[in-house]
């Protein structure tokens, strides 16, 4: 059982967390001007890195969304951040 650090609740069991996608995956602005390929990139294409990852997670116990930097091979967590802090707004406009 791995512990993930919720910036609000501290270390909690991995099973309390829900993966929310790549940090920085901004919804394209402009409605009709957005091309098919831009929508495809936003909706479906993923970074899915082998190694260092920068991701959005939700802690389902407190309901908060935050950003976490971790390694997808050894599962080591570098740090987690409140959105808007730590130099990246995590894709939340």
């Amino acid at each position, binding site marked *: 059982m791995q512990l993930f650090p919720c910036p609000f609740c501290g270390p909690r069991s991995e099973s309390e967390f829900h993966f929310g996608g790549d940090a920085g995956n901004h919804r394209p602005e402009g409605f009709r001007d957005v091309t*098919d390929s831009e929508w495809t*990139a936003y909706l*479906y294409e*993923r970074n899915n890195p082998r190694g260092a990852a920068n991701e959005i997670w939700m802690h389902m116990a407190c309901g908060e969304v935050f950003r976490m930097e971790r390694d997808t091979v050894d599962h080591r967590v570098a740090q987690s951040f409140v959105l808007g802090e730590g130099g990246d707004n995590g894709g939340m406009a």
Partner: protein
Amino acid sequence: MTRHYSALSLFKEGLRGQKGWQKAWRSPAPKPRYDILIIGGGGHGLATAYYLAKVHNIRNIAVIEKGWLGGGNTGRNTTVVRSNYFFPESTELYDLALRLYETLGREINYNIMLSQRGIMTLAHSEADMEMAARTVNAMQINGTDAELFGIEDVRRVLPLLNVSPQARYPVFGGVWQGRAGTARHDAVAWGYARAADRLGVDIIQTCEVEEFLIEGGRCRGVKTSLGEIRAERTGMVVAGHSSHLAAKAGFRLPITSYALQACVSEPIKPVLDTVVLSPGTGVYASQSDKGELVVGGALDRVPSYGQRGNLPVLEDVVTGLLEMFPSFRQLRLMRQWAGIVDVTPDSSPILGESPLPGLFLNCGWGTGGFKAIPAGGTLLAHLLATGKHHDVSRPFDLDRFSRGRLIDEAAGSGIAH
């Protein structure tokens, strides 16, 4: 040297102390140039090489594998083969695979131990039964075999299953596919490798593809740990590692890599002679020829390239299994392992040319591509040989994500993960 496998050759070799068997495949050094390169020596990559040589008569081919043959998901899977999907496109694909599996052992002179023992997908409520009837109707209309089972039929094929009305997930019936079953995973990889090698395909193990050779906007080959290898066309068949290599080729894929685990019990006498899947517990099981119960469940919900698997899912799988079969309570688990699977948003595979011309994709099989190996090989071979889609692979092109034409089997057939 004995090449052909048969009862007679086994007997003759027995008299000679089993010393005359020819190696199943050569281990050549890579040539600087091939007509076609295949990255990944799992089932799909090896089958692609075999069908290129056999059906399209292209012999100057290499398969490049970073580890050992079948050491990826092909040698880690729970060996269930079936074609109980919902959409016509999926039935075309998976039933093609099942039909090819039915004659494969004879065709390649290798016993893949196909055992069409049937799969029982349980229904746990009246509403589940209505969905089961819908699935059975869809499968029959799409031209594959399916039967709607009531509780008495379930009792008959699964005498040890807990069907008590007090069960956490009571059983009402379910979907039966009699032609489904299991096959030996290693044998599928080794059988295709041996057959491809015999047709002249070079199989190169412990050689990792590190970069692509991109010239004039086309893929012209690869840079490997053993040097450059050039080819006119390249097929990328690396399952959970697809995004990693795609990044080197300059594009992203609609894929997330997750660990999928499985485990086996100690071997026991025959107790389970079908495959059973419970959508309620999310657990499926079968019994291997050695007597071990082979058990699997849902994905680990943490994107991962760590080929281990985490404890919470293993706990869920074991408790789910005991919910279904209380009599397995005293069994010991012998082994647990995981593979890195390539999951797409619609739980359907990706087949077709990649955004980098000259590089072709066979990936996105996620948790269920063992059953599809003969079809995945046939279709990628067709793409690599002709540069064009086969009718069966066309709907699975990467362009379905921008056309909005997804084939959502996660919703359609309610596959567990």
